[in-house]
């Protein structure tokens, strides 16, 4: 779920920035595009870490509220134990990750091929960079969708 949110946010903000005024001023400046893409990849990674922390905090708070409503007391050990069980990756999580990663890598691979084909047909290196960038985030987006599908419908 987080990878879907992050990929949508990063692609949207990148599109607004890169295809707006800034991008138009540096249409053939490869260095500008490389720097921009690196910055947005960094933003994506940082956003993912922050969202994961927020998600864990919210999970702990909701666990405490549920306990308080049920027992009228909050047992910190119980919350910690529940958090440990719920957040640790078990065999089903690993299986789902493996299966959904396959879709992500396929899309990235197709993006790489599309980039090469674009270059072969005379497109600029900037176009290839953008194709690679978009296919990477599209892969991440589809990976997230497939994870949701596997969790809901089964592996």
């Amino acid at each position, binding site marked *: 779920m987080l990878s879907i949110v992050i990929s949508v946010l990063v692609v949207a903000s990148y599109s607004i920035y890169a295809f707006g005024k800034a991008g138009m001023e540096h249409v053939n400046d490869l260095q500008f595009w490389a720097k921009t893409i690196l910055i947005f990849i960094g933003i994506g990674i940082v956003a993912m870490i922050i969202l994961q922390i927020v998600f864990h905090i919210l999970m702990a708070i909701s666990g405490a509220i549920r306990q308080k409503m049920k027992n009228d007391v909050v047992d910190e050990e119980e919350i910690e134990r529940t958090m440990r*069980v719920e957040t640790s990756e078990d*065999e089903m*999580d690993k299986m789902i990750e493996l299966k959904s990663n396959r879709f992500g890598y396929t899309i990235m691979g197709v993006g790489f091929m599309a980039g090469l084909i674009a270059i072969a047909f005379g497109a600029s290196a900037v176009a290839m960079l953008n194709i690679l960038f978009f296919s990477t985030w599209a892969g991440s987006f589809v990976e997230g969708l497939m994870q949701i599908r596997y969790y809901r419908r089964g592996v």
Partner: protein
Amino acid sequence: MPDKLEITNNIRTLRFFAHEMTQQALAEKAGVSRQTIIAVEAGKYSPSLELAFRIADAFGVPITDVFGFEKNEQK
């Protein structure tokens, strides 16, 4: 082509007879998340042999009391 096997389980019944053991409690005993127990119980995920044994161990019964299979003939 061999017949397709559908893995079945009696986890819900076994939980009932284990003083209505919660999915959370079973998950903790088996060392997996509650989500995984829900998926196994609903037949949406076929567990590894190790997890199947751990679930059986949590109920204190042989693995064949927890899991079974049905043959679906291929057409």
